């Protein structure tokens, strides 16, 4: 579904040359929920913006359904970390969700249907007439998610969407995303710096190295499909996985892959080849 091949992004400007992403190659299958974790400042946002067609990579390419991404593709929706800035304060919730649909040349009745359905999915039917700034942070991010859902994307890119909400809201939103993923079969690429979140949400976790960034490791999360905050997070396997990811990230910060005896069995998960 989503192929990233040899992606490299170098920022040049004011006499400084920053290689944000060196060489990234990975694949996300249709209907998969993949989490990307990496040390802070490792170019996660750069990667996501290249994938979303918001930035042009220096070299390499991103393919969506086999077609190269050169601008924001119609089958892709983006959820930003800064929900407060991503939602338009001059529009009511309903209009915020509907705006992208107007670009899709859908009939007004179909648009209303999609908006109502998306708001219901995130539990915000009652807030349709409110302005985003009248809602709490968690509700605002739900609106942003509803806007993405109404757009009916094949792929949903989420850039640290819950980094700015409190812990309890965050847990609710994580369950919301997993629930929506299961119901709707959307392909989701979820970027986070939170290791627990990555392991809890993902079917697969991609661990990135420090900048200049390469894929440090791909890890399959073999937790049951039905997950809940209470039990999954205390499961021994969850602890093992998160420890492993943590070690890999620490190793990434030191600049090499972790070579630890107790995680050998996990490294057997070869990255899928497509």
């Amino acid at each position: 579904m989503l192929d990233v091949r040899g992606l490299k992004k170098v920022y040049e400007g004011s006499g400084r040359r920053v290689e944000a992403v060196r060489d990234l190659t990975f694949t996300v299958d249709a209907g998969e929920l993949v989490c990307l974790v990496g040390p802070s400042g490792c170019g996660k946002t750069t990667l996501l913006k290249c994938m979303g067609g918001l930035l042009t990579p220096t070299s390499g390419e991103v393919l969506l359904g086999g077609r190269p991404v050169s601008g924001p593709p119609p089958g892709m929706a983006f959820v930003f970390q800064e929900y407060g800035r991503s939602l338009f304060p001059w529009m009511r919730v309903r209009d915020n969700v509907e705006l992208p649909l107007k670009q899709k040349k859908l009939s007004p009745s179909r648009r209303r249907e999609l908006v109502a359905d998306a708001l219901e999915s995130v539990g915000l039917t009652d807030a349709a007439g409110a302005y985003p700034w009248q809602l709490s942070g968690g509700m605002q991010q739900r609106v942003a998610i509803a806007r993405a859902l109404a757009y009916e994307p094949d792929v949903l890119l989420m850039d640290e969407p819950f980094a700015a909400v409190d812990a309890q809201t965050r847990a609710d939103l994580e369950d919301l995303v997993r629930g929506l993923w299961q119901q709707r079969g959307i392909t989701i690429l979820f970027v986070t710096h939170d290791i627990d979140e990555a392991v809890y949400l993902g079917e697969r976790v991609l661990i990135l190295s420090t900048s200049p960034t390469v894929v440090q490791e791909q890890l399959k999360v073999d937790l049951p499909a039905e997950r809940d905050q209470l039990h999954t997070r205390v499961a021994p396997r969850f602890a093992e996985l998160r420890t492993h990811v943590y070690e890999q990230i620490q190793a990434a910060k030191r600049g090499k892959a972790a070579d630890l005896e107790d995680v050998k069995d996990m490294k057997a998960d070869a990255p899928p080849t497509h």
Partner: protein
Amino acid sequence: MKAETALLGTAGFAGFLVLCEAVPRTGILSEDYFPPVTRIADALVTELGDQAFWTALGDTLTGWALGLAIAVTAGILAGVLIAVTPYLREATASTIEFLRPIPSVALIPLAVLLYGTELQSVLLLVVYASFWQVLIQTLYGVQDVDPVADETARSYGLGTWARVRHVLWPTALPYIMTGVRLAAAVALILAVTAELVIGAPGLGRRIAVAQSSQAVPDMYALVVVTGVLGLLINVGARTVERRALAWHQSVRGEVAV
């Protein structure tokens, strides 16, 4: 608290009127040049009954409204164009900074040369003065577009025109509204100035005529009318601003979440 403010305001104004009545009557100021309020009020009533007064008022308002409309349209179009075109902002900044401080009244001789005492003279001065207010505010407003909001719009496939309409315009609107409000006040000042100095038809010329014919209370009555006009324009502009920007931080106040 609000009632108290209103009460104090009314009382203060009433005191001011009493003072303006009393001071000339006690002879501290010459009644010839500072007629008491009641005589100004009498003159005002007479003015209101005069058809020529209403024509003059109409002329002033025409010059004001037309000039403002031209300045606002041109200011917004130029501002958006300059702000969104790469390098144009840098290239025009020095010229704008040079032209902007030129007092509009310094162009009076030019206006007379070009258009004599016609409406165009008034328009030239009004447009020159108010154009910069709108242009500068538009430039600031467009610059304030949030990169996240713009990226959101781009990621959802909004084209250039849709982004101008749904992101750039609402972002710049609070700034533009401020510019228009300032421009509306400046436009009235310049309209009256042009009529007064050049002699274009309107309240300004009527003030000049009243002065030269020693009709001092009439002169004051007309000055009062221009003051009321300014007040109404400001109140009107603020009302429009509040309606249009109900969503904006400056209007909505703090919201309990």
